[in-house]
C-alpha cells in the first residue's frame, strides 16, 4: 500500500517536473505566430527558422555557444590547479582560495551581476563577449572545483606510494596516475559549467549591457512582445543539449557518486 503510494508520488513528481517542459516543447510545433497548447496545425518550420533563417536567433545561439565553451574551459583551467593544491597540500591558503572561488556561486547572482556590470564598465569592456566569457568562467568555477576535488579524493593513495617507491618522479605520477583517474571528473565539471552557462540569465543580462544577446537574453527580450513558437525551439534545443550532456556524464562517469551517493552501495 505504502509502496504504491511511493511510486505514485514519484510519478506525480516526474509529471509536474516535466509539465512546463512538455508544454514549451509542444508549442514549438505551432504553425501560426501564437503559442497555443495543444499546438495548431503542427509543423517543424520553426526549427528551420531558429537554426538557419532568422539571424537574430542564429547569432544568439552562436554567442551562447562561444560564451559557454569559453567559460567552461576557463573554469576548468582555473579550478584544476586549485583543486590539485587543495588535495595535495590542504594548506590554509588553498582552502581560502577555494572558498573565495565558490563565493559568487553561493550568493544571489543578481548582486554578482550588478557588481560585474560596474567592474566591466570601469575597464571599458562592458558588452564584450570576452567579458561575458570571463564572468561566467568565474561564476561557474565552483562546479569543476567540486567535481575535480571528488575525483582527486577517489584516487587510492597506495597507487601513488607504489609509483613513488618504484622511482617515478612527481611529474610522471601526475601524468600516469593522477591525470587518467581524474579525467572523467574533469570532463563532468567542464560539462556542468557548460550547461549552466548556456542557461544562465541574470549575470549575462547585466554584463552584456544589451550589446549582444545570448539565447536566454533574446528570449527574455522577446518576452515583452509575447511568445513566438520559434522561442520554444530554443527551449527544446537547450533541454536536449542538457539531457545529452548529463546522459554522457552518467554513461562514462559515475553520476550518483558525483552527486555524493555512498560509494559502497552498488
Amino acid at each position: 500500500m505504502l509502496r504504491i503510494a511511493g511510486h505514485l508520488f514519484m510519478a506525480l513528481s516526474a509529471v509536474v517536473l516535466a509539465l512546463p517542459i512538455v508544454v514549451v516543447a509542444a508549442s514549438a510545433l505551432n504553425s501560426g505566430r501564437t503559442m497555443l497548447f495543444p499546438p495548431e496545425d503542427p509543423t517543424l518550420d520553426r526549427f528551420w527558422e531558429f537554426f538557419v533563417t532568422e539571424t537574430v536567433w542564429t547569432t544568439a545561439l552562436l554567442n551562447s555557444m562561444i560564451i559557454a565553451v569559453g567559460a567552461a574551459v576557463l573554469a576548468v583551467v582555473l579550478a584544476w590547479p586549485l583543486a590539485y593544491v587543495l588535495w595535495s597540500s590542504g594548506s590554509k591558503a588553498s582552502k581560502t582560495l577555494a572558498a573565495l572561488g565558490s563565493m559568487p556561486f553561493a550568493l544571489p547572482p543578481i548582486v554578482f551581476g550588478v557588481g560585474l556590470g560596474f567592474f566591466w564598465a570601469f575597464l571599458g569592456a562592458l558588452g564584450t563577449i570576452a567579458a561575458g566569457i570571463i564572468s561566467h568562467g568565474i561564476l561557474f568555477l565552483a562546479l569543476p572545483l567540486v567535481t575535480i576535488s571528488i575525483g582527486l579524493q577517489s584516487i587510492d593513495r597506495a597507487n601513488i606510494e607504489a609509483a613513488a617507491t618504484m622511482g617515478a618522479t612527481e611529474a610522471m605520477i601526475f601524468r600516469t596516475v593522477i591525470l587518467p583517474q581524474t579525467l572523467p571528473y574533469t570532463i563532468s565539471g567542464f560539462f556542468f559549467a557548460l550547461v549552466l552557462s548556456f542557461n544562465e540569465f541574470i549575470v549575462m543580462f547585466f554584463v552584456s549591457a544589451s550589446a549582444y544577446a545570448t539565447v536566454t537574453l533574446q528570449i527574455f527580450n522577446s518576452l515583452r512582445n509575447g511568445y513566438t513558437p520559434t522561442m520554444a525551439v530554443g527551449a527544446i534545443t537547450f533541454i536536449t543539449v542538457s539531457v545529452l550532456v548529463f546522459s554522457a556524464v552518467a554513461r562514462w562517469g559515475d553520476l550518483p557518486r558525483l552527486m555524493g551517493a555512498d560509494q559502497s552501495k552498488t
Partner: protein
Amino acid sequence: MTTIDDTAFAAPPARSRPNWASGTNLILMAIGAVLIVFCIVPFGLVIAISFGQKIEGAAWEWAFTFENYQRFFVGAEWPDTVTFLYLQRLGYALWYAVIASVLAVATALPFTYLMTRLSRAAQARWLVFLLASLSLSEVFIVMGWDILLSNRSGLPALFKATGLTDWLKDVGWFDVLREWGLANPRNVKFKPSQFATILTMSYLVWPYAVILLYPALSRLDTSLIEAARTMGARPFTVARTVILPSVRLPVIGSTFLLFVFLLGTYVAITVFANPAQHTTAVSIYESVRGASLNAPFGATQAVILLITAAVFLGLGQALNRASGGAR
C-alpha cells in the same frame, strides 16, 4: 570522504623536485590574484558605489553619503514623509523565498528518499532528468508556466473545457478562489498572483533541493530502518524517529541555501507577481538598467540584499554547528 580520511596518507607525495613545488606555488599565486580581482572587486565596487550620488540627468559620481541607505529604509523625503516602499519590497523577497524554499524541500525530501531506495542505474536515470531540469534556464521555466497558467491556453482553458469551472461555481468554492484573487467572474485565473509566483519559484529550486538532499539520504544507514521495522515500528514512526532526525542538518542547510538563492529571483517575479508586490531584485534592475537610472541606489539595494543573504547563510551555518556539536 570515505577512503582518504586516513591521516597517515594525507601528507603530500614526496617532493622529489623542488622547482616543481615552487612552480605550483607560482600558479597558486596567479590564480589567487585572478580570484581576488574577479570575486572580490565586483562586490567591493557594489559596496563603494552604494555610497555614491546620482547626478540629475546624467550618470553618478563618487561620494560618501548615506542618502541611498536612508532612502531604502525610510524614503528620500524623510523626515517630512516616511515611506517603507523598499523595505516592503525586501519583505516580499523574503516572503516568496521562504515559502518557495520550504515548499521545495518539504516535497523533495520524500521524493529523494524514495529515489535513493532505487537501483543505482535507476538513480542515474533520475539524476539525468533532474540535472537537465535543474540547468534549464529560469527564462524557459517561466515561459512554460506562463503558457500553462495563462488565461487563453493552459489550465484555465482546461478548467473551462472540462466543466471544472462550473463545478467549482456549483459547490461554491469559486467564490473562495475569487476572494484569493485566483478567479475573475468568468473563470479561474492564475496570474498575476502570489500562487503562480511561489509555484514557479518552488519549481525552480526543486531539482536543487533533491540534489542537495541526495548525499545525506543515500548514505542513510539502512540497517537502522530495517531494525526499527523488524521491531514492529510503523513506516510513519520510522520516518519520524529514524529518518527525519538523521537528515535534520542537511534539510535545514538546504532550505537556507535555496532561500538565499531565491532572494534574487528576477524573471519569475516580473512575469507572475503583481507590480505592487515586486521584490528588491526587480527594484535593483530598475535602478541600474531600467527607467530610473540611479546606479548608486541600485548598488545600495544590492548591498542590502547581499547582507540579508550573508546573514541567513551565516545563521544556517551557526544552526548547523550548534546542533552538530550537540550530537
